[in-house]
């Protein structure tokens, strides 16, 4: 009888697998369609916002002394003399070709500016993201494992402080403490002035210097990353630790862990093989939000550390009312978060068989 059942079961499984692959593809297709819609809506939103401002952006860019004909010329050049929906059409068709217009302040194409500044922020955000994920999950796991012991209490207090402290306050405190008082770590820019700059390959200084074997630059770049990276990471790290703690201490009391224990499986194996993976699901699912938080806060933190990145470019564009640059910055961010969220969903699907298998079993 058992033998008779087995092939049938296998057959069902194969069918299921096929359907699951289909469902992941369908899920991806749906997400992409939705993303295109969201990006389109975001572009309408930001374009409307950037064009309803009081005042004349051209006059502001050229200054009060510019002759009227220069203002008229530039306005014509930027299609600002046409009705707003025509302006939007011009802007959109440019954006689709990768041309996001000209910056009113730097007078360079915005896309060139962005290409120049994105790698610095990307490097910082990835560094912060790694700190967040590694330390957040580790601290949450320790707190959850030793629930209500002193380690747990210390970590919980720490995570409250991390959550409620604005990242720019961390940044200021770090500059004060490590930059001035202890004089341990650099607080300005990406590299010290006396270091030979590695050639720009990816724009990520750490990778460029690693590839070219310039280890002095690599070390220096890492040192420069520490303070801004940690200021950005602490808030989301605390959030991650809290969620990891909750889910580990929940899962710890489940029957499957008790039975694993009763089989005599060593604690370390239980922790890493059986406890950590399911407990990672809630932490990974909010990582998209956390990453968004890191980039949002980079707008302030890059200012403090004089980090020549995309966020500092963005905030400067906002302070200077540089319309094209503001719109481009928001669009690039929207695109980034959509990609990050799709990646997060895929990782969660990989971690969680209930989602991977089409949500039919766990129910």
């Amino acid at each position, binding site marked *: 009888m058992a033998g008779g059942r087995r092939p049938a079961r296998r057959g069902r499984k194969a069918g299921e697998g096929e359907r699951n692959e289909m469902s992941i593809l369908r899920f991806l297709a749906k997400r992409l369609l*939705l993303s295109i*819609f*969201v*990006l389109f*809506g*975001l572009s309408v*939103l*930001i374009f409307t*916002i*950037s064009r*309803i*401002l*009081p005042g004349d952006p051209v006059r502001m860019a050229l200054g009060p002394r510019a002759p009227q004909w220069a203002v008229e010329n530039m306005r014509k050049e930027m299609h600002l003399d046409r009705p707003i929906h025509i302006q939007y059409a011009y802007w959109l068709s440019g954006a689709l070709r990768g041309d996001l217009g000209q910056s009113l302040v730097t007078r360079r194409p915005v896309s060139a500016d962005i290409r120049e500044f994105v790698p610095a922020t990307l490097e910082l955000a990835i560094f912060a993201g790694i700190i967040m994920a590694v330390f957040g999950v580790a601290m949450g796991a320790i707190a959850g494992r030793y629930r209500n012991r002193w380690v747990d209490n210390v970590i919980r207090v720490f995570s*409250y*402080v991390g*959550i*409620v*402290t*604005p990242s*720019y*306050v961390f940044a*200021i*405190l770090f*500059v*004060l403490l490590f*930059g*001035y*008082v202890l004089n341990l770590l650099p607080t300005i820019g990406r590299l010290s002035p006396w270091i030979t700059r590695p050639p720009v390959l990816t724009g990520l200084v750490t990778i460029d210097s690693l590839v070219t074997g310039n280890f002095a630059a690599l070390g220096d770049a890492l040192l420069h990353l520490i303070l801004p990276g940690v200021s950005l990471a602490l808030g989301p790290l605390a959030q991650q630790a809290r969620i990891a703690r909750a889910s580990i201490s929940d899962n710890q009391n489940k029957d499957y862990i008790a039975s694993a224990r009763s089989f005599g499986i060593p604690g370390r194996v239980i922790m890493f093989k059986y406890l950590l993976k399911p407990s990672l699901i809630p932490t990974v699912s909010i990582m998209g939000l956390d990453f*968004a*938080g890191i*980039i*949002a*806060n980079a*707008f*302030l933190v890059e*200012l*403090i550390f004089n980090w020549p990145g995309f966020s500092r470019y*963005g*905030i400067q*564009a*906002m*302070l200077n*009312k540089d*319309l094209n640059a*503001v719109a481009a*910055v*928001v669009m690039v*961010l*929207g695109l980034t*978060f*959509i990609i990050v969220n799709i990646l997060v969903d895929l990782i969660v699907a990989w971690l969680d068989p209930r989602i991977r298998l089409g949500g039919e079993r766990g129910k």
Partner: protein
Amino acid sequence: MIGVNGLTVQAKKRRWEGFRKAWYKFSRNPVSVVGLVFVLGVSFLAVFAPLVSPYPNHAGPYVNFAIGSKPPSLSHPFGTDAFGRDILSRVFFGFRYSLMMGAVVLALVVIPGVVLGLIAGYYQGTRIDTIIMRITDIFLAVPPLILALAITSVLTPSVLNAMMAVSLMWWPWYTRLVYGLASSLRHEFFVQSAEVIGASRFHILFRELLPNCVSAIFTKMSLDMGWVILIGSALSFVGLGAQPPIPDLGTMVADGAKYLPDQWWIAIFPAFAIMVTVLGFNLLGDGFRDLFALEEI
């Protein structure tokens, strides 16, 4: 025996009993009580700032360079800033702007957000649902801080414009929260019964669905007070929110940052004030969440 009045008295009694039980449960959690104390303390200082601050006139454009940049002392417990203004007094007045920011934004945001969420949840699966929820997706595509920065940047920077910008970015969170709750409640028996006896849409949305979402909305509001205050202070920090001489905590941190590290007290005390305020609302919100046994927030 029991008349209409008797019933209402009993109902009132039961409600009071419910409150007492909730308070008992709430007060068992020391963390929530600490949060409540912080929130009440900050609110008290904000409301009575002109009475409790040692130098109420220092909140405005007061200048006395003779006592400028003095470290903390007995007469100025938090020290003075470069213009000679008492930082303690300015922090008390700063609580006013922080709380006002949070209160105004939430007041503007909760009603439209909740109503849209109820409608989308009730008409789940229809075109109305699609339209409302896809619009919220657009607003949620970029962190609220960045869109708020983008909006304030095209307007003249002021407290009012900062509030408007944050409000414009914040309603989708309520829509999304209420949508989740309403769409799961939508197929419960009590909603179906109301439909069967011909209750109006208005009745179903606001008398059947809404009361079941109130505790979640309330908890989210408490947590959001903290977040909105953080975002408001960030806007002021970069100069797109409150303008000097308004004693906004974010502006004060930004000003003080210029005098680091020698005159550390100018930036550090306002920064701690922001942290205490946000911590209070967070702990309180966590307390509500445990109290109402909510998981989805």
